[in-house]
């Protein structure tokens, strides 16, 4: 049994313990330990990506042992890790972004030790969510990730950090409670029907998605459970109208945390739907699909329109995330091969581009100490390299071909048209609005005559380039050769899609 | 001859009680720390007397004697240390008035 997933998950935790043992003034040591303990999972997740067997239907790199076992209550919680085509790219994404986040926070001065310790704990939580194959374990990691995020926003954030952190925390906790209830529903269902599902397996996600088991999850009750889980995940995605924590959290969070937030945390909602809701409750998913499509549509158009009205650069980028995540929802609702691929690939591509965007916003905020779009202007003179990279990121975000977001969004649209024509057509207007706000913003920030007050602004430095260039390279590479990522996803997604499709036919 | 009947144990105990009471009085009433130490010595002597008396009358071996010896020994030590302290107090406060030493007053 390979322990690569455990290593990926817990090396950051180990790093955190090491950091906690270091004296607080040894800042360089703390940073180096952080680099090391994020670089190692990154290297491991790259090897995971390379060793991944594309054609395989099941879980790979599985680790399994009992964690908690109470025979009297027929309760068994497993320590079960494994990845398939849905989660492996996200593990890689988390590895990349966590590694870059360390560099993006290199110049943090306040509470360096606590900051990096929390960052590493956060990585453990995120990796755990993507790797775990046990509902309970999933839930534990889900909550583990919440706490460091709360402190990272609440301590190292902007002026309204307390408000944002508490809002984020409470909102997510609200979702978690619903998730917990859903989890209990499975357990008690198993207790009542031990012949279908052994209660000892009630938290095993692979077992729950088994064709024989999931067939028993029918009827109104499971629709309610689905909705509960959906709300739990929708808060993370975030789906309108549960999205308002996002702009606040993004605006207040420090740059690296915004990167993690947009790059990884938002993906957890979609990942949860793809891993839990759709394969386990396909019948309810088929029932809910039109609502999901409608919500995705609202996300796309509403997010884009609100983004256009923003005056704060970071808030605009935050709302653009709302808009882009809508494509994931539409794709999952449409439930065709192309749309599912698009939705899953959108998670990865949006992770890359939104991370880039937030890093770029961080760069300019470090220099100008404000983010008001209309107060900038003519920055292309002072910061040509920065302008070039921003152009790349903006163009990627507004879906320019040759860059990765185009592939995912095009796949979603190509796939959804058959299922939801009107929805798809209206969603496609999102790409106009996307072009609208990004280019308008670009015009106001970078074009026009050079302003005196920014004349001394230095261009991006080496450290910032180090965080931006790998992302930019990936954005281009996956735009030119998307198969590198798509081929890993396709079979696993087909499983999910088949589950829902058969439920749709059956219903 | 047996003097046991001649001098009953109670005699010794009476003397011992008197010494103890006087020691207590000295300890409580005297302001002078050195005088208080004398009270302590009285109390210790009364205790010793009891030890030896009981050893002679009721126990019938030398254990009481040995205790008395140890007490004397400790008294010597105590006297030495206490005197050191008294001198220290005197140096610090210019006086050895125990009433003035109320640093623990609540």
């Amino acid at each position, binding site marked *: 049994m390979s322990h690569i997933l455990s290593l990926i998950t817990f090396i950051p935790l180990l790093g955190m313990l090491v950091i906690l043992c270091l004296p607080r003034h040894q800042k360089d040591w703390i940073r180096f330990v952080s680099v090391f303990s994020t670089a190692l999972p990154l290297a491991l997740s790259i090897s995971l990506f390379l060793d991944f067997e594309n054609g395989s239907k099941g879980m790979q790199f599985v680790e399994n042992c009992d964690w908690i076992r109470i025979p009297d209550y027929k309760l068994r919680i497993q320590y079960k890790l494994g990845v398939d085509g849905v989660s492996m790219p996200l593990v890689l994404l988390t590895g990349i972004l966590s590694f870059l986040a360390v560099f993006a926070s290199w110049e943090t001065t306040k509470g360096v030790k606590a900051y990096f310790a929390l960052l590493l704990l956060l990585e453990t939580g995120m990796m755990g969510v993507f790797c775990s194959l046990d509902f309970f374990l999933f839930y534990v990691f889900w909550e583990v990730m919440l706490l460091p995020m709360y402190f990272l926003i609440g301590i190292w954030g902007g002026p309204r950090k307390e408000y944002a952190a508490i809002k984020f925390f409470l909102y997510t906790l609200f979702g978690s409670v619903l998730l917990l209830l859903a989890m209990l529903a499975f357990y008690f269902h198993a207790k009542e029907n031990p012949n279908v599902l052994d209660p000892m397996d009630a938290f095993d996600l692979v077992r729950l998605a088994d064709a024989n088991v999931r067939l028993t999850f029918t009827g109104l009750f499971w629709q309610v459970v689905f909705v509960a889980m959906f709300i739990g995940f929708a808060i993370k995605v975030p789906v309108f109208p549960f999205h308002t924590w996002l702009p606040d959290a993004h605006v207040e969070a420090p740059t690296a945390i915004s990167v993690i937030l947009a790059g990884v945390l938002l993906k957890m909602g979609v990942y949860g739907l793809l891993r839990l809701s759709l394969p386990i409750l396909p019948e309810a998913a088929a029932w809910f699909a039109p609502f999901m499509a409608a919500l995705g549509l609202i996300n796309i158009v509403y997010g884009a329109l609100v983004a256009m009205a923003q005056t704060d650069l970071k808030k605009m980028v935050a709302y653009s995330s709302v808009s882009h995540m809508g494509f994931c929802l539409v794709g999952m609702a449409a439930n065709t091969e192309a749309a599912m691929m698009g939705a899953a690939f959108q998670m990865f591509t949006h992770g890359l581009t939104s991370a880039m965007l937030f890093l770029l916003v961080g760069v300019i905020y470090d220099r100008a100490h404000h983010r008001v779009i209309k107060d900038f202007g003519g920055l292309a003179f002072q910061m040509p390299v920065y302008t070039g990279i921003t152009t790349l990121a903006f163009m990627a975000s507004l879906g320019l071909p040759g860059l990765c977001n185009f592939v995912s969004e095009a796949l979603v649209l190509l796939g959804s048209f058959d299922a939801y024509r009107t929805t798809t057509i209206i969603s496609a207007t999102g790409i106009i609005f996307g072009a609208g706000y990004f280019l308008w913003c670009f015009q106001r920030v970078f074009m026009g005559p050079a302003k005196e007050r920014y004349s001394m602004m230095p261009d991006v430095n080496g450290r910032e380039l180090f965080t931006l260039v790998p992302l930019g390279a990936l954005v281009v590479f996956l735009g030119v050769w998307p198969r590198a990522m798509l081929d890993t996803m396709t079979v696993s997604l087909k499983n999910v899609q088949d589950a829902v499709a058969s439920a749709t036919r059956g219903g | 001859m047996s*003097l046991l009947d001649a001098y009953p144990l109670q005699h010794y105990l009476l003397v011992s009680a008197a010494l*103890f*009471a006087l020691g207590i009085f000295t300890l409580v009433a005297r302001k002078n720390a050195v005088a208080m130490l004398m009270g302590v010595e009285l109390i210790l002597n009364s205790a010793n007397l009891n030890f*030896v008396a009981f050893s002679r009358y009721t126990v019938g071996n030398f254990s009481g*004697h040995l205790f008395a010896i140890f007490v004397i020994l400790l008294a010597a*030590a105590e006297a030495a240390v206490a005197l050191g302290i008294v001198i220290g107090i005197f140096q610090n406060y210019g006086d050895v008035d125990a009433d003035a030493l109320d640093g623990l007053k609540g």
Partner: protein
Amino acid sequence: MTTLTSALYHAAFYADMVLTVGSACVVAFSKNIVRSAFSLLLTFVGVAGLYGFLEADFLVATQLLIYVGGILVLLLFAVMLTHRISNIKASNETSFSALAALAATGIFLVLVEVGTKTHWDVKGGPLGESTRPIGLLLMGDYLLPFEVAAMILLAALIGAAYLARNAIRK
């Protein structure tokens, strides 16, 4: 034993008791600390006498040597070190006399009550010459307490020296 010797013996015994208690009274009540100190000498001697009547010959010697020869001298030194010679007479005031009297009377009465009312199981007899058995015991059964006591003495000496040295330095 003759009547005369017996009478003298009795007289000596009671005189010794009176001496002991009386001199202790002087210690307790005297206004002069030097007088108290010297009365204490008499008390110690009286107690030594009582030890004699209790046939504890080794203790008599110990009492005289250590108390009279050691502790008392220390006390006298203390008296002299803490008082200017000219001021000696006025240096032994009392406070809380009533409280002290109450406490002392109370405990005295209790002790007397206990001592007299209790039925003591008097079964022992004369123990004979005591020096040798005590020596054997100290080197035998009581070796550990003996050694500990030695350590305490040493520590006390060092401590006393340290305290006194500090005080003098100031």
